[in-house]
């Protein structure tokens, strides 16, 4: 039997830290826990509560992405100030979510779910692999960032599904690191676009530096996919 209790506890322990906002780990761990709980629900074949977890992960995700952006070592000062303002806004939106009746109900509902029968979960693992295969085909066919990120999300779900089943995840983790590097640079560039759309200005050098790193990371991601795909899809 596979109980969701460890990750539900992890979530419950980090919600107050996320609400306080002093420790970046709070929001990060809330998002990590929620993503694992979503995969548990999928392994259980449950469609309900998914929207509630998605709602929570969206709120936490806005804060987390900006916190990661602000952790960038060479962020131009004006871009950094802009990101700090956006982070303040994201936090202002997150706190009422963490105080809401919906979250209280969600925690209550999750805590009432019975453990998942292992054979049932094992029977659903194939869907996770199939999703990775479909996303990979889309990426190979179109070679764009959107499809690469879709593959990254599918890999994350497969990894968490295998973790719930206590199966090996080394090949997936390695691949996730390579694809994650592309993701990190892409989202920094997306924020840079938003900053400039708001009237901000960063140096051409800064943008070019990111674009050069992106090209390199993309090459590494493709090489990593070629070397790991058989292990991941087996």
């Amino acid at each position, binding site marked *: 039997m596979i109980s969701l209790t460890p990750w539900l506890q992890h979530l419950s322990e980090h919600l107050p830290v996320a609400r306080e906002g002093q420790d970046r780990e709070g929001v990060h761990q809330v998002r990590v826990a929620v993503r694992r709980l979503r995969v548990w629900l999928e392994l259980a074949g*449950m*469609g*309900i*509560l*998914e*929207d*509630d977890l998605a*709602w929570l992960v969206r709120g936490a995700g806005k804060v987390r992405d900006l916190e990661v952006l602000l952790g960038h070592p060479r962020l131009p000062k004006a871009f950094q100030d802009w990101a700090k303002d956006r982070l303040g806004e994201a936090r202002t939106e997150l706190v009422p979510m963490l105080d809401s*009746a*919906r979250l*209280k*109900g*969600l925690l*209550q*509902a999750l*805590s*009432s*779910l*019975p453990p998942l029968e292992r054979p049932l979960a094992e029977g659903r693992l194939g869907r996770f692999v199939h999703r990775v295969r479909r996303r990979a085909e889309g990426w190979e066919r179109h070679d764009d960032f959107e499809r690469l990120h879709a593959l990254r999300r599918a890999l994350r779900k497969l990894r968490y599904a295998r973790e719930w089943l206590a199966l090996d995840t080394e090949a997936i983790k390695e691949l996730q690191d390579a694809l994650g590097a592309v993701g990190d640079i892409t989202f920094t560039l997306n924020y840079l676009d938003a900053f400039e759309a708001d009237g901000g200005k960063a140096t051409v050098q800064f943008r070019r530096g990111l674009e050069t790193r992106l090209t390199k990371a993309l090459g590494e991601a493709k090489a990593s996919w070629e070397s790991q795909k058989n292990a991941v899809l087996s």
Partner: protein
Amino acid sequence: MELYLVRHAIAEEALPGQPDDTRPLSEEGVQRFREVVKGLKRLDIRFDRLYHSPKLRAVQTADLLKPALEGESEVTPYLAEPPSTKLLKTLQGTQVALVGHEPWMSQLCALLTLGDSEEAGAFVFKKGGVAHLEGHPKPGGMRLLALLTPKILRQL
């Protein structure tokens, strides 16, 4: 707003020491409620929002109702307590389903149609039964269009 009040399907009795929140649906409850959902779909009933109580039997009933949902679901503790304005203020959508428990579903039906939850005795909700209301979700703001027993819905 069209509102569908749904009482959870048939659940197992609590085992000694088992919290009420964790009582699951029985196998019979699952099978019968699947037929209820088919009946709702034959009536071409679809929801754009589904709210449910966090108790396991309501969560599982809401999960069975999901094929009729074309929007978002939301868990709310306000459906695991007597009806209140807090619940009514939560509601969004135009075709809305609420999955909850007795006596609160009858009380909610009485509050919305008659303006007084004390009149709950006028409504009988079988497990898996559905009340169809229309109007504004405020005390006395809705009218009852149908009170469907699970038996009727299964036979559609």
